[in-house]
């Protein structure tokens, strides 16, 4: 409702007006019976005597923009007329609700600030109708919601209300893989720390002695782990010395990782491939092992899991119709694998 509309009204009608100030500072006047339909305005007028003049304008809540105010008053103007039948009102409401989603949300917010419950209910009903039956992707698109949940969070077993034993299997598989990667990350981080300590001395030594990493031949497993960390830190000149203590630790860690992988194998035959992956890995002796093994392993695992997920999804979709897109299992989510940085992430 703009001032120009007001000008058309005959002066003899002697309507009284209420003055209102919207969030942008603009002031306008509205017919009293229309404005008083809103409880918030009504309260202000009756309890505080506000709104009687331009200087005394009721300042409206922030969520009420002039455009929204105009919409709200259109609604009020129609409904405050007493003689209308229920059917007329319903027809009006249906037509009134036809607007884009953004305006609908703003209108809900505005109506709520003005405490106009019938309009809040009307808009809520319209929003509910928009949401119902749609997939999460569709809903996100309509309301511009960020897709910021990790896949892991989307799949968390308790949240899986479409409980399917295959989903549980997948979750278990995923959880075990996470654990395994965590352990390997732990492995690396310990090495990193040790490595850092040694580095300063060895660096110096190697620099002094002019050695390069290829000369050193330690046990395959140790070397593998050592090389991993070297590449992780982006340096090609590795250290030659690995203390006995460390090697023992590395051994035990390697064993535990192997154990994990073999237990994984019992879950699904897909995972037996992991065992295969582990053994060929040991054959690499070069320093470039790192870039290929670790990320390669991860990629392989990712692919297996995605395959599995795809297979699962196709039948899952049929039975539940929940998420229609294939579920993506990305390891470099925001979760536990944070510690894997550097080339691993870059490879992805």
């Amino acid at each position, binding site marked *: 409702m703009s001032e120009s509309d007001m000008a058309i009204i005959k002066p003899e009608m002697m309507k009284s007006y209420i003055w209102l100030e919207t969030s942008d500072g603009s002031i306008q006047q509205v017919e009293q019976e229309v404005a008083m339909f809103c409880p918030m305005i009504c309260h202000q007028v009756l309890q505080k005597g506000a709104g009687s003049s331009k200087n005394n304008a009721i300042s409206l809540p922030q969520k009420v923009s002039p455009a929204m105010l105009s919409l709200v008053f259109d609604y009020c103007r129609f409904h405050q007329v007493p003689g209308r039948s229920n059917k007329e009102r319903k027809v009006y409401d249906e037509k009134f609700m036809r607007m884009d*989603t*953004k305006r609908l*949300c703003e209108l*809900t*917010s505005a109506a*709520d600030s003005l405490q106009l419950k019938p309009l*809040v*209910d009307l808009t*809520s*009903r319209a*929003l*509910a*109708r928009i*949401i*119902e*039956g749609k997939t*999460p992707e569709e*809903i*996100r698109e309509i*309301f*511009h*919601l*960020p*897709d*910021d*949940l990790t896949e892991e*969070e*989307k799949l968390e077993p*308790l*949240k899986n*209300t*479409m*409980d399917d034993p295959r989903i549980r299997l997948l979750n278990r598989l995923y959880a075990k893989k996470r654990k395994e990667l965590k352990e390997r990350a732990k492995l690396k981080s310990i090495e990193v720390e040790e490595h850092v300590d040694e580095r300063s001395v060895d660096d110096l030594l190697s620099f002094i002695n002019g050695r390069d990493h290829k000369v050193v031949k330690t046990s395959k497993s140790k070397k593998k782990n050592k090389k991993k960390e070297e590449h992780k830190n982006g340096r090609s000149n590795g250290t030659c010395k690995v203390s006995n203590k460390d090697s023992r630790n590395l051994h035990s860690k390697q064993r535990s990782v192997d154990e994990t992988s073999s237990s994984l194998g019992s879950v699904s035959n897909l995972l037996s491939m992991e065992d295969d992956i582990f053994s060929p890995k040991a054959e690499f002796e070069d320093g470039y092992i790192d870039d290929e093994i670790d990320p390669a392993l991860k990629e392989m695992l990712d692919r297996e899991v995605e395959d599995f997920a795809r297979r699962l999804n196709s039948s899952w979709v049929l*039975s*539940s*119709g*929940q*998420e229609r897109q294939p579920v993506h299992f990305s390891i470099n989510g925001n979760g536990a694998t944070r510690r894997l940085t550097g080339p691993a992430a870059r490879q992805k």
Partner: protein
Amino acid sequence: MGESLDLISDLPQSILENILTRLSLRDAIRTSVLSTKWRYKWSTLTDLTFDEKCVAPSTERAVVETNLVRFITGVLLLHQGPIHKFHLSTSFLQCRPDIDQWLLFLSRNDIKELVLELGEGEFRVPSCLFNCLKLTRLELCHCEFDPPKSFNGFASLKSLNLHQILVSPEAIESLISGCPVLEFLSLSYFDSLVLSISAPNLMYLYLDGEFKDIFLVNTPKLVAISVSMYMHEDVADFEQSSDYNLVKFLGGVPLLEKLVGYIYFTKYLSIGDDPGRLPITYIHLKTIELYQVSFEDANEVLVLLRLVTHSPNLKELKVSASPIQLFPLEEESFDLFERDYFDYKLPRLETVRMTDVSGIRNELEFIRFLMGTSPVLETVIVTSSLSDKEARMDMVVELLRFPRVSPRAQLLFLQD
């Protein structure tokens, strides 16, 4: 553009809950995968409604059952805050220990409205239900109900609905009298119930089943009564006492606005010695619907006449006649309408509908009576169950002869 594009997530929680409650529970919970903000928005909903549509359909019943149980348990575990309404309606669940656990959980979470409509099979309601002292509405279907001795009723219960419940009449009576603010009572699908109802705030009474005897001991505020009374073929099942059932049952409901009776209800009311006039006038009674009235039985017709003539504000009357008995009672009822009934006026009666009319004397006389005493009568709709065209014609001819006090009265004859 410092504001996020997100249109909806920052609306106040009250609005979001308003929206979420309008979705099915399944859709509402699915919003938890939309974004981080939406993860737990559903979890504070206070009204939870479950049925088999919450889980994926399956041809195997056991699968649906298991999935539904897991779903409900999962929802309850993830839920935060009080739960005010729990509505479970499915034939897939019968007796399961899980239901006991859910009820225990609910009893600790301020449950106010509990609706449990299970499949056939007597689920025994656990004792924790009787600890839900904030209950305002209770609806049970296919359950076994056995309150402990220490149970004193639900102090806040306003609505009670028991359908096909295995329970002793004493338990129901004490339950009803232990709920002082009870306003709505519905008892259905019972066998041979003898019941005495004492409920000072009761406004709506709905009975449907085999009742032997009902006493409305203390129900002064009753506004609407609907009774479907079944009984054994042997009419003698009804207690023959000298008290007039009409007075016994409807004597203490001065505020009555609507009365509906099916099957043997009118017969039940007609039992006993007729004292002549009724002690009470139903000044608020606007609608009377009595179905399956046996017009061959003068006593039943008398009940009808009494009710109609003691309701000065009666606006709408619907009556259906029951089919002719194999052994019709003597038609001693000519003088029924010769009495001083025609001195009565039905000043507000506007609509009359009589169905299954077979053309016997009492039926026609009744219509004649109505048309002769209702100055604002507008429509009289008559439908007949007669198959014989000639008999129908005779009836119509006779009906058309009746004098009408209301100038606007229309007599409409409809084919069944």
